């Protein structure tokens, strides 16, 4: 059997690219199937591609831009021989050996697979939401904040991402509502302090969006107070949603063990329930979800994969014994 690779890495955020650096340095010649371009966090480089300043990645005293950081990760992996394919995996079969990974009509075989497909932002699921993308509803604050100079806009959510977006957006908007379903935030203290101090940020507590107002252009959002049931329309020109993430695991349904929210389940480091398949980063982490933890588990998955490969009999070579010479 020809063209069997040692390792295929699916996904190219901090987890996948760290796994690529480590497996490349171990001479495993990883193929990184890095995903497809989009305006969401589900793209080559992952969620950091849509951020600006990253202040908490160790090693950068003055911070670094998210896309620049991911560019560095990728270049570092490439330097050690990692190969990249800028496409999306369409199907995997983890019941065969070597594993099968398909990208459209292309089929790849690998002895080990590292899954680092990450997570993507949840949408609200309201009527009109998709239709209004580009007309007031945005999936990318860093791309679209500019268009709301002097306007009133809203961010939905109460975590770090929501407050970071809200604070960033006050550079442009004159007022940013933060709509949050509870009366306290789960964001880090430093982000909370920044948001509370910012005069352009106004919190709308205990509230959830129930309707987007506007036909061809967003004009407002109707919110319901979850405690009183009262509904209010906030007039806004822009809406940014940061209410959490869903793991990108649809490829693996029925093949890899997942928890009730679709996150991959790992045991003993990065091992999944399938021998030879490892998981790293946000796809298997709904708790920490940091670039540094993703990079850390990416490293673990590479070491786990390397050791697992070493422990395996070299089936591929046996299968390759020529019979037609």
């Amino acid at each position, binding site marked *: 059997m020809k063209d069997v690779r040692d390792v295929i890495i699916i996904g190219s955020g901090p987890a996948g690219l760290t796994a690529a650096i480590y497996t490349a340095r171990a001479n495993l010649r990883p193929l990184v199937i890095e995903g497809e371009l989009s305006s969401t966090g589900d793209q080559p480089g992952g969620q950091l591609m849509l951020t600006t300043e990253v202040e908490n990645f160790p090693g950068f005293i003055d911070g670094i831009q998210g896309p620049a950081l991911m560019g560095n990760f990728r270049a570092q992996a490439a330097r050690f021989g990692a190969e990249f394919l800028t496409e999306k995996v369409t199907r995997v079969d983890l019941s065969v050996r070597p594993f099968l990974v398909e990208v459209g009509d292309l089929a790849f075989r690998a002895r080990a697979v590292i899954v680092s497909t990450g997570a993507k932002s949840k949408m609200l699921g309201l009527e009109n939401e998709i239709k209004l993308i580009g*007309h007031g509803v945005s999936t990318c604050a860093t791309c679209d904040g500019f268009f709301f100079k002097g306007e009133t806009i809203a961010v939905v959510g109460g975590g770090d991402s929501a407050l970071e977006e809200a604070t960033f957006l006050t550079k442009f908007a004159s007022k940013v509502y933060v709509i949050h379903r509870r009366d306290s935030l789960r964001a880090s203290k430093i982000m909370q302090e920044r948001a509370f101090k910012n005069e352009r940020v106004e919190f709308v507590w205990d509230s959830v969006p129930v309707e987007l107002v506007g036909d061809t252009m967003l004009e407002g959002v109707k919110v319901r107070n979850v405690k009183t049931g009262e509904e209010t329309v906030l007039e806004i020109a822009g809406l940014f949603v940061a209410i959490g993430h869903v793991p990108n695991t649809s490829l693996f349904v029925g093949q890899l063990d997942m928890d009730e929210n679709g996150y991959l389940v790992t045991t003993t480091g990065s091992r999944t329930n399938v021998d030879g398949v490892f998981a790293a980063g946000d796809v298997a982490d709904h708790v920490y979800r940091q670039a540094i933890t993703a990079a850390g588990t990416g490293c673990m998955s590479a070491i786990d994969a390397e050791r697992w490969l070493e422990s395996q009999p070299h089936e591929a070579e046996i299968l390759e014994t020529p019979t037609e010479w």
Partner: protein
Amino acid sequence: MAEGVDVLTDSTFEEEVAGADVTMVVDFWAEWCGPCRMVAPLLDQIAAENEGKLRIWKLNVDDNPVSARKYQVMSIPTLLVFKDGVAKKRIVGAKAKAALLNDLSEFL
């Protein structure tokens, strides 16, 4: 910038759009927009591969706010497709090349 991709400004927009004899695709972009920078080389390729059928123009929204406002661009990258001087289609967001070609297929 590859051949077949030209720069458009607020002052040249109307003239170029009205005078175009092929399909015009205007790429609204900005330096600080990551997805815009990533989609740019794909547009360069599409322009080069479809010479004579369509022409791709880049419009920097930082320097040319009038056109962005006029066409209600509120998200970038946005591609506006013009035929005979009229905006026919709006493509919002960065996409893979195959998806872009699919969106543009009716004009190719």
